């Protein structure tokens, strides 16, 4: 039983209603069995049919009540599940955006999307099933059992003994099955992944000349996969086999017992038939729980995973924002001053520092290069400056205002961010450019596109700036994606630009042209450019050299070269080239 279950909003009235309906349902089951038995035994005794019409109608009534109760139960449970599932999903969504891109990257885009979509629907399924199943198992068998005891104590004893045996066997076999699966989980995983792994590696196989011969391997591995699966299934199906076996056996034992006692005249035919009809009904709720066991388990886990995201601690200033400081406007002008002091970032407690004791003073507009070997902390610093990440230590002062960090909407509204692979939304080119500033006029969009060197592309597109791009639309090349991001930044008119390795993946000609486009756009802005492409550095007004998460030195290109320090070494080792 899920302890969280009782915590969901609206569970109590739902549960109360379902319990009540189940009670009515179990009474109707008893009645329909009784009335049918009475009709049958009366006919058996030779009574004419027309004397039984009333009873037959009563049976039909009870039968219908039983199923209508089930119908209403399902409806109520579904409505509850839908509401609860949706609210949980909404909380996850909101939380995701609060946690920001760093969390999304860490968890994996695919995982998160699957969790929000598949997870939420599995969870809904679970709620929809668990409520009526729990109500069913906690009422129906007992009501039936009490009635059977009133009719025939021996049958009652058989049935009450069968239930724990059945459950114990089911659990034992379930445990054995799990142990069995766990034991060969690794082989199983390899076997089941083999096919998709082969498809993904098809090009490599072909290039290595192994494409043809590998198809035999696929057949062979598929066959091994089948035997492994069958071995597991043989055990896994045992638990439903046990369920089936004990149910059917109990019914048979009850029936034979009833027959013998009828011969001895200890009971009447009506009692015999009633008990016989009720016996399978007694086991039905347990069998349904067994049948839905895996679906409910999946859903329960999905719900727990979603809850985990909601409970994720928030590394942000949102508390402050809620405290009414939302309105605080920040601005960045040529006289502004940003100082970071003692900034440290630790992704895990007691883990290594990604940034350590970083102190910087930034004045007004200018181009600032951030350079360092891989893992020196370039991207982390950009994340801190862009307000994606709250540092674990240190403080930020902006124009003499003390800020805990830059993770506020007020600061984000001043910045634009261009990563290595800017994301292109599945929308029109114009909409993509307008992303930060949705209200800008078409003429502004056009000017921004021109400044980013997109005019040529737009001319060649069949629908011009209204062409669909991104997922499901036209694919852009790496250089064109950067230009869209540049146009986005240019149109937004925001004073601070952050770029994280914008050109390293491009071919050198595209990089050269893009650099010519970018440099003029950097004028009159505060630009942070993190890269390992050295050619940018002479164009920077200030260079921050990072080493192992610390600021090794700062200065202009000339100053740093003259110092012959870390920067000089870094450049020389890179320029050393290929020996």
């Amino acid at each position: 039983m899920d302890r969280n279950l009782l915590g969901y909003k609206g569970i109590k009235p739902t549960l109360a209603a379902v319990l009540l309906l189940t009670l009515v349902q179990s009474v109707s089951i008893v009645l329909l069995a009784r009335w049918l038995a009475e009709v049958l035994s009366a006919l058996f005794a030779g009574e004419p049919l027309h004397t039984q019409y009333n009873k037959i109608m009563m049976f039909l009534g009870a039968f219908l009540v039983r199923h209508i109760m089930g119908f209403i139960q399902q409806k109520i449970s579904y409505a509850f599940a839908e509401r609860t599932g949706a609210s949980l999903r909404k909380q996850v969504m909101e939380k995701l955006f609060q946690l920001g891109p760093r969390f999304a990257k860490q968890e994996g885009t695919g995982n998160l999307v699957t969790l929000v979509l598949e997870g939420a629907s599995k969870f809904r399924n679970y709620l929809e099933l668990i409520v009526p199943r729990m109500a069913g198992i906690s009422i129906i068998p007992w009501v039936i059992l009490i009635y059977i005891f009133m009719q025939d104590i021996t049958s009652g004893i058989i049935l009450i003994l069968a239930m724990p045996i059945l459950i114990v066997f089911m659990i034992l076999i379930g445990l054995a099955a799990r142990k069995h699966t766990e034991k060969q989980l690794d082989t199983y995983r390899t076997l089941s992944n083999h096919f998709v792994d082969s498809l993904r590696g098809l090009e490599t196989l072909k290039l290595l000349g192994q494409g043809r011969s590998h198809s035999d391997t696929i057949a062979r591995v598929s066959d091994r996969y089948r035997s492994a699966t069958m071995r597991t299934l043989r055990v896994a199906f045992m638990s439903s086999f046990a369920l089936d076996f004990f149910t059917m056996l109990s019914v048979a034992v009850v029936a034979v017992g009833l027959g013998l006692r009828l011969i001895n005249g200890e009971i009447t035919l009506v009692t015999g038939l009633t008990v016989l009809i009720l016996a399978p009904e007694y086991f039905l709720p347990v069998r349904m729980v067994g049948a839905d066991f895996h679906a409910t388990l999946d859903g329960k886990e999905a719900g727990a995973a979603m809850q985990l995201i909601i409970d994720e601690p928030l590394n942000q200033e949102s508390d402050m924002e809620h405290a009414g400081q939302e309105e605080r406007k920040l601005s960045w002008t040529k006289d502004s001053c940003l100082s970071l002091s003692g900034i440290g970032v630790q992704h895990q407690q007691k883990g290594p520092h990604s940034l350590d004791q970083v102190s910087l003073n930034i004045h007004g507009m200018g181009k600032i290069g951030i350079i360092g070997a891989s893992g020196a902390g370039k991207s982390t610093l950009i994340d801190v400056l862009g307000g994606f990440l709250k540092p674990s230590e240190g403080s930020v002062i902006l124009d003499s205002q003390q800020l805990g960090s830059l993770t506020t909407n007020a600061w984000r509204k001043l910045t634009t961010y261009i990563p290595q692979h800017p994301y292109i939304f599945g929308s029109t080119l114009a909409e993509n450019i307008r992303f930060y500033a949705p209200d800008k006029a078409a003429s502004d969009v056009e000017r921004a596109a021109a400044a980013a060197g997109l005019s040529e592309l737009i001319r060649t597109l069949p629908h011009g700036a209204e062409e669909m791009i991104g997922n499901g639309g036209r694919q852009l090349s790496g250089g064109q994606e950067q230009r869209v991001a540049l146009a986005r930044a240019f149109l937004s008119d925001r004073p601070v630009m952050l770029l994280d390795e914008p050109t390293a993946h491009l071919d050198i000609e595209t990089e050269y042209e893009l650099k010519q486009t970018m440099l003029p756009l950097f004028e009159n802005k505060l630009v942070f450019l993190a890269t390992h492409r050295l050619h940018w550095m002479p164009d920077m007004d200030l260079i921050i050299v990072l080493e192992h998460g610390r600021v090794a030195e700062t200065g202009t290109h000339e100053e740093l070269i003259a110092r012959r320090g870390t920067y000089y070494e870094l450049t020389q080792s890179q320029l050393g080239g290929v020996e």
Partner: protein
Amino acid sequence: MREESWLRPYVRTYWGRFLIIIALGCLTILTASMLMFTSGFLISKAALRPENILMVYVPIVLVRTFGISRSVVHYVERLVSHDAVLRIVSLMRTRLYRILEPQALFISSRFRTGDMLGVLSDDIQYLQDVYLRTVFPSLIALVMYVGSIAALGFFDIRFALFMALYVFILVAVLPWVSLLITKAKSRLAKQQRNNLYSKLTDAVLGMSDWVISGRQSQFVAAYEADEQEAARVNGQLKSWARWRQLIGQVVVGLSVISMVIWAAHEYAGGHISATLIAAFVLVVFPLMDAFMPVSEAIEKIPSYQTSLQRLGEIERTDGDGATCETADRVAGEKTSGVSAEEVRSLAASDVHLTVQHVSYRYDEASPWSLQDVSLDLPQGKRIAIIGRSGAGKSTLLKLIEGALKPSSGTVSLNGTDAFAIGDHMPQVVSVLNQSPHLFDTTVANNIRLGDRDAEDEDIQRAAAQVKLDQLIESLPLGYKTPMHETGQRFSGGERQRIALARVLLQNNPVVVLDEPTVGLDPRTENDLLATILDTMKGKSLIWVTHHLAGAEHMDEIIFMENGRIEMRGSHAELMETSERYRNLYRLDRPEAFMVK
């Protein structure tokens, strides 16, 4: 319909097993029904209070037999059906692989978006359900339908036909109505789901932009609105499922009553004995249970359509566009015009690769991908090819790899046509590309892919050459470490080194490097290039690159644009003569850093 070809042949292959499965399925229902029938009979018989218990001995034994055997039969049925379906899946997989294999080199350009291959593999997995959830239950219900009506007809043909009507509602009318009602809605629901999926993926991938733009709540609101719409459609589907269930139960209730009335009449008419009344009535419940799942089974049919369509399309498109030559060749069952012998002797000698005035376009209507390109590559020459995406580099490589046939001009190795070598090409030309796949097996097996017959020492030597030996030996399981466990530990550069080790084992005279260093940081890139150049001494190299780092080590540098060679020459020549080259070269080696 082409799609059906993914279902039908397997029925033919396994018809024997299918028959057994259906027989077992019917037997399961039969035993459950007979348990109730014999129980009802036993109790009624016992109520007559026979003198001797032996009078009810047979029914007692039957009740016990049916009680035990139903679970056993059902268990066997499930195992047999899963076994058959897994056999089918195995055949489907081999078939999909055989379809995709000839087009392997074009897959990445054809399925640019998403993980199409993963989707196809899931499709096959999903098609299991066609048999398990739809075909078997429907056929079993159908056989039971005919069987039970025939059995009843033995007693009273008119009443049997009357009952046939009730069951007809369950096995035909409800499923048909169900299909009618849910078909459009299921499709809509699926569409909405896909839509939500791409919207959410878009948002998560572009999250930094949403966060910076300050519009995240706008997105959440829009997304929730879509979710609600999807929930509404889903709710309608669920609501119908509930109604369907209720209608089905009403039919069951009515048929029970009809059975009571009929049995009473029969008894009154003296056609059946009193002991059969209860038996006939009680058997209705378990029997009807067999017919209820048919609606659900039929309702699933539209959901298979997408998977079947996708698989069908894969087969269709292998006859057009980019892959037509490849497909033709496969269709001709002739793997190449050159024998394996000839290729072996070619690979053993020095190879002179020549590309003479080659042009290529996919078909008459499309623009030229490549125009009048010539290369001359005697054994040991090293060239670099530079150009933007779409300049024709990949097409040129495919021509050299013998995967495409030039529209005009020739590509030849020691005079043998490259396209004719075809599938034997991996014995002459090795390729190291941007993202070589590392398979989910051990490190040693991954390296061994270069040469299946390689001994452990060869593998260790190759690993040492690519400077991975120390790293691999430091792993707890050494060369036997499964790759998926190294996924976190091996960096991009190290993964490329494993692929390089494969190429070394292949030991071919010609090596194509297709941007193997993209995405690596400069330090790693330089180290990897140094290793590559060092281990590739004496081999002809064709290196497609996007940087000029290492260009000094090449004999010739070729700039491509719009399918043509724009500029070519050695590093020294180009530095001398071309302003453009100097500008580009300065990006990689800025003069400002050339401190004396």
